């Protein structure tokens, strides 16, 4: 083929078509004038008119520095969270006991009950808050890409409300008593998986699991499961049972024990590892199933993998902490505002950010109205909503152009 003039378009607008700049063309060449190099300048010196009415390039924070900062803050926050609390224990005393526990030091006999509070209640609780926060944020990131919907959160597929049915059956009717201390978590996890299987079966069609079908099915299931839960709360004879059911629905880290932390941590670590290896595929999926296919990512299969992984992690998290809202919805958005939409950056920053947020929210839930404990879900919203709205307005964020 004959060599052709290289096309360089004018910036911002399409190339100019000038009759006197057509290049000589061979027989059979397309009958078009070649857009000529713009005289306005090189690409780096684009004319001001073209770009003036467009949003400026988004400012992004450097990811390594941000991640280090968040991890450092988290490292300081966990002991601080252990030190803060309602039990008439000073910050210094609590930290001293924590150090004693970590270094195998000696605890005086009169401090044993305080030591138990620090070591058996507050520390696992702070750690669980970090694990759950990280997990919810990561799953939220994955689900928003998986269904390409800004309103998606870890509970969008109806998994949380399914888990609530099982948990409330335990709390209100004392079901699954044979499982002993595992009854609540076990029932929540099993019913989460049941809900997930139901959503999966219903959302599948000949055309595959499309994002819209998934979201609609999940939402419909959510209403169905919620009404069952509500019925159970109304049917409860004991007011205290209804209260704990309510507490569970709003989320609480009060059940943290040294048994629940490793289970949740294992699920979250596995989920994070899988997502870290899938970050580029998530980018492709976010651009649409067709684009993903063209990039060698089978959307259908990838979405199935994501469905399974997010459901397992969500099920594990819901089993230990109830349904803590907001974190999985807003931390991904807030992170996108700071570092952009690339999932490699998002998945590095969102988990530590979610962990940090939840550690402090849990501290607040224990201390604000002490000795009464507030549901974590209420406080994530109380603290999160204004800061999120502020961030959104200041950075001019739309889901569209972060």
């Amino acid at each position: 083929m004959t060599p052709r003039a290289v096309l360089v378009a004018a910036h911002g607008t399409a190339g100019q078509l000038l009759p006197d700049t057509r290049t000589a063309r061979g027989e059979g060449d397309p009958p078009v004038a070649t857009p000529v190099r713009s005289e306005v300048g090189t690409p780096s010196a684009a004319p001001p008119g073209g770009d003036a009415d467009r949003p400026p390039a988004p400012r992004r924070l450097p990811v390594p520095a941000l991640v280090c900062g968040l991890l450092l803050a988290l490292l300081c926050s966990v002991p601080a969270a252990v030190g803060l609390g309602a039990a008439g224990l000073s910050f210094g005393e609590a930290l001293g006991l924590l150090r004693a526990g970590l270094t195998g030091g000696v605890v005086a006999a009169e401090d044993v009950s305080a030591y138990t509070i620090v070591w058996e209640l507050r520390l696992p609780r702070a750690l669980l808050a970090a694990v759950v926060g990280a997990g919810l944020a990561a799953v939220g990131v994955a689900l928003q890409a998986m269904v390409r919907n800004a309103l998606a959160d870890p509970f969008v597929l109806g998994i949380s409300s399914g888990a609530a049915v099982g948990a409330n059956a335990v709390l209100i009717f004392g079901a699954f008593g044979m499982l002993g201390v595992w009854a609540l978590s076990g029932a929540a996890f099993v019913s989460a998986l049941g809900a997930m299987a139901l959503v999966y079966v219903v959302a599948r069609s000949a055309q595959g699991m499309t994002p819209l079908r998934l979201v609609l099915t999940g939402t419909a299931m959510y209403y169905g499961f919620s009404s069952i839960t509500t019925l159970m709360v109304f049917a409860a004879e004991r007011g205290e049972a209804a209260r704990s059911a309510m507490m569970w629905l709003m989320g609480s880290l009060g059940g943290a024990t040294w048994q629940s932390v490793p289970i949740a941590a294992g699920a979250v670590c596995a989920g994070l590892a899988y997502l870290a290896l899938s970050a580029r595929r998530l980018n492709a999926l976010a651009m649409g199933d067709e684009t993903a296919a063209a990039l060698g990512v089978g959307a259908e299969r990838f979405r199935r993998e994501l469905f399974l992984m997010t459901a397992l992690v969500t099920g594990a998290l819901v089993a230990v902490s109830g349904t803590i809202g907001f974190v999985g919805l807003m931390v991904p958005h807030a992170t996108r505002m700071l570092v952009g939409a690339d999932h490699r950056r998002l998945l590095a920053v969102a988990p530590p950010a979610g962990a940090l947020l939840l550690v402090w929210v849990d501290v607040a839930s224990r201390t604000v109205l002490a000795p009464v404990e507030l549901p974590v879900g209420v406080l994530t919203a109380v603290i999160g909503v204004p800061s999120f709205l502020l961030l959104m307005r200041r950075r001019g964020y739309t889901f569209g152009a972060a």
Partner: protein
Amino acid sequence: MKVDVDGLSVRIAGAHLVRDVTLRAGSGRLVGLVGPNGSGKSTLLRCVYRALRPTAGTVRLDGEDLHAMAPREGARRLAALPQEVVTEFGFTVAEVVAMGRLPHQRASARTSAADRDHCARALDRVGAAHLAERAFLSLSGGEKQRVLIARALAQEPKVLVLDEPTNHLDIAQQLEVLTLVRDRAAGDVPGGMTVLTALHDLNLAAGYCDELYVIARGAIVASGAPADVLTPQLLADVFGVRAHRVRHPESGSVQLLFDRLG
């Protein structure tokens, strides 16, 4: 790289969307696919870029069955610009182009200097280097198309599939995009990149394509050089329009003037 589509059929829910299509695109050729709306252009192309598995038939690249390859393997040879890009995510142009490297990267590997180099070169080739840090969604239609072509080029494909790349573009942008594609078909890979594109505008198809395939109701009804294919009879039969053929005064290629329907 040669593309051979043989006996390809797609049946969805009882409807025959594509039936027994055979199509050949030789190395370095720019092959156009034209036909009325709903004739099966997109369905056929989706089988070629693997968004859809055909009910029957094969797509082969230099003789190798594309649908038998691992998806990544196929994506290293064939890139595509699907018709609709549905995203609400605020990727930058550089991030969109970087996605083209996906089939070449291991999941755990960091982005290499070579990857970045490929992306920068691809953006440069489409004249969009100055857009790199802009938000993809803030671009005009023509700029978006150029960036998506850059993403496809970053994929280092030997075959490029485009589904109506000139949709929603003004005339200058249409010419710009097709010229870009045409230049790529001629250059890059030894033997030239093979391009298969669906086009709406028959005059653009006649002006740019080496060969045309006409598809109607899922089946190929004519193929060959544009001048041989775009006859008044075929245009009446397939598109239901009356057309006069004229020669372009400069290039000599066939161009069509349309009458009112009937």
